[in-house]
């Protein structure tokens, strides 16, 4: 089973690498990194239940995002695909956080 935390950190690291390859950094990248950090901080103190469907979906999506953003580092042509996966993962984490907030 994928774990959200390590994949989220890996995705952040990959996005920061992509960001630092450009000057000025693409606004979309800065926005995605900002949002991911916000989610990271929210997750630190959240009572996350790893057995939930939302957690599984978020962890899988983030694993995919980590993998695709790493591919983008190695081949910039894949950047758009990688950022698309990050957007999907952000939505899944948002759903997870919403579930926690609703408890």
């Amino acid at each position, binding site marked *: 089973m994928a774990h959200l*935390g390590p994949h989220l950190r890996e995705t952040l690291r990959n996005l920061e690498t992509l960001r630092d390859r450009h000057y*000025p950094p693409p606004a979309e990248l*800065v926005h995605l990194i*900002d949002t991911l*950090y916000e989610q990271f*901080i929210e*997750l630190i103190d959240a009572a996350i239940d790893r057995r939930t469907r939302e957690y599984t979906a978020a962890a899988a999506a983030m694993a995919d995002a980590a993998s695709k953003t790493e591919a983008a580092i190695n081949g910039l042509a894949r950047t758009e695909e990688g950022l698309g996966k990050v957007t999907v993962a952000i939505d899944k984490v948002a759903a997870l956080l919403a579930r926690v907030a609703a408890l």
Partner: protein
Amino acid sequence: MPTGNRGSCLGRIVGVLLLAGLATGCAMTPQQKEQVGRFGKATATLGAFAADELPALRRQIIEMDSLTQVLAADGRMPAPDGERPISPDSARQRVAAAQALQAYGALLDALASGARKETLRSKAQDLVETFDSALHQGLSDAQRNAASGLIASLGALWLEKRKKDGVRAIVASYQQPVAQLGRLLAEDFTALGSGYLGAYTAVAGRLENRAKGVLADAPLTLTERQLVINALLDAEVAKRRALALEHAAHQAIAELEAAHAALTAVINDGDMRVESIRAYARSIQELHTLARVLTQP
């Protein structure tokens, strides 16, 4: 836990400890001295680390959060919050963990010092109550009752063996929850973890990203540019510092764990001296100091 059981068990635990406290210690072997020395060094490092670094860490989280707010161009950032990302509940959990470690160290210290009956009773009571409070699930019956089985067989209260049995029972029973609270501390000192240092790193990373975004975004006045560059430098220094802190803390915790394991092995082998118990107790109380610092404003 049922209050009646707690009182009964406490009575038996206190009894064991009283018996143990009656005996006196012998000289330490060179091997024990080495183990205690390692233990003392490890805890001293942790204590100094905590005293110097962690209050600053907590302040910087709040400062970086405020700076990030200043750099927010679209106003969608939440207002800076001194408790974020560590909530009051999490802070209370760490206080409880700190108190439990303190109680454990204090009980062992009292035991090794041959403290009076009233002191031991009070410290044993603190031990059970603080661990019950610190652990989400509370103490198990087995942990609560670990020492009680010895009471029935106690005859010659002053015998060194009885003391060893009493201490052995306490250390064995509380090894797991102490390790659990130790893991909480270790997580707090992991730069990419979900504890304090993880929060520190994340807040620094967010500030760095925000500063880079602002620098690239629009023409800035000289003063504005200076502010953003300072924020960027703060974030980069914080990220490097987090890694250095993680390295130092984990080295110290690893030393402590190794020393703890060596001491436990000595206790389990039956080759135990009062000095070893006291050194161990002091070390555990140093851990308490470390945990307390995390929660200071």
